[in-house]
């Protein structure tokens, strides 16, 4: 009896939760094609200070994305299905398959699912937990890869946003190798000192 009650409670909880993510994603849907400016900050154990680049992300269709870095150098990446083509000014073009970079695939599938409002696809790859701040309208969607090896390599993805917008995508298993993709902002709007806590704070506080 107790077990049955618990099961029902869990079931209703899960259903309500899935509905919640559904509702959230519905407000975030962007019809393709769409374009949004981004600033990316990347920490690495190989670097003393994080590197920063900015440009635009282009959502062309389901599974087709383009990323254009404009500042401080020019670089274009196009992702079409499995094929990634990376070209940077003054360097030879590089091609690789997404299958070899599960981290990138994880990020892309989450990004793609969010933009197309596909909660089912998102739930297939990730365990989702959503937290909302009711008065402020801010929310954080925590995505934990279901696949154990991917989880180890990629860590959790945190997506932050406000009313109808995604503002930050944070990924990386450790603070010293994390990457912050801030959407819809210009580099000047970021905190003055680019540290992990400062960016974390920026992503959770800014609507």
């Amino acid at each position, binding site marked *: 009896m107790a077990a049955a009650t618990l099961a029902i409670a869990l079931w209703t909880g899960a259903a309500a939760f899935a509905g919640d993510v559904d509702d959230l994603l519905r407000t975030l849907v962007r019809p393709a094609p769409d374009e949004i400016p981004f600033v*990316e900050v*990347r920490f*690495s154990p*190989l*670097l003393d200070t994080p*590197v*920063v*680049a900015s440009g635009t992300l282009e959502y062309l269709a389901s599974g087709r994305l383009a*990323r254009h*870095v404009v500042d401080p*150098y020019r*670089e274009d*990446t196009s*992702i079409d*299905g*499995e*094929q*990634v083509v*990376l070209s*940077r000014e003054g*360097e*030879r073009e*590089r*091609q*690789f*398959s997404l*299958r*070899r*970079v*599960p*981290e*990138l695939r994880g990020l892309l599938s989450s990004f793609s699912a969010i933009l197309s409002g596909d909660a089912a696809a998102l739930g297939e790859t990730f365990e989702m937990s959503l937290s909302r701040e009711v008065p402020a309208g801010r929310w954080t969607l925590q995505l934990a890869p279901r696949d154990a090896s991917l989880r180890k*390599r990629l860590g959790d993805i945190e997506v932050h946003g406000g009313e109808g917008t995604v503002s930050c995508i944070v990924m990386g298993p450790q603070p010293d190798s994390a*990457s912050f993709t801030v959407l819809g902002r210009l580099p000047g709007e970021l905190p003055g000192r680019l540290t992990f806590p400062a960016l974390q704070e920026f992503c959770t506080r800014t609507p």
Partner: protein
Amino acid sequence: MTTLRSPARALLLAAWLAVVLVAGLYVSRTLQVSGDLRLFLPAPRTEEQHLLLEGIGEGPASSVLLVALEGDDPRSLADLSRALVEAVRDRPEFLRVDNGETALGEIPEPLMAYRYLLSPAMDEGGLDVPRLRQELQSRVRDLLSPAAALLEPLMTRDPTLEVVRLAESWTPAAEPARFEGVWFDGERGRALLVAQTRAAAFDPDGQQVALDALADAAGAAGVAAPARMIVSGPGSFSALMKQRTQSEAQRLGMAATIGMLLLLALVACGGPRETCYTWIDDCGHGGSQDRSVLNAAPLEDES
């Protein structure tokens, strides 16, 4: 001429049997049946010839099996091809397996140590300041690019990414067509793979073990009707050759044995006695003699 007495006869028989047994043992110990076709080539004299013969027998070109998957739609075949690579990758019988989905900078580990020796960039100025600066600048940019996850693990060992340069320079200009990143034939009817066996090409037993392992892996990867696997290459030929020779030798050997037994039976107890004696008589004495003399008179009397 004297007739041997029966103990002496028994002794002779025993000695003969012993000789046969020892010879048989010697042969079974030392006889090596080999499918090595290099034995037909002249013996190598120079280093180059040694290398050539080694390459023919154990080199990658001869220990590579060509595998094709066919019979299904391209998408399913591509999935099967990936599953087969996963299933074969950890088998001890194989050194390497590829279906075209090679990663940027993926290079066999033994070659990694020789990256600077092999790289053409070292001949074009080496690691001077401007080049190193430019390379490190590019690495910083790589860390921010979507290829970061791919390249970051390489950077500490190989900051100038010579392995990537090498892999690029070794990529052939003409490659099989690809579908979903996997090698296919032009009509997309067959997914293509290559697998390098640990066994040398002319080691039919080793190749047979590898082929069995491959078939086993294909089963594990879900290669089932309508899809099927075709395997070709020197190793598969050598296993096939051994099978053919073995079954043919068995069949012919069996026929020969039966023939011999029949003949012996015919000679020993089947044929008319007269023919028998006449024949011995002819051979023994070089001319025809009266049968009655032979029958009546013991041999010792004749001499």
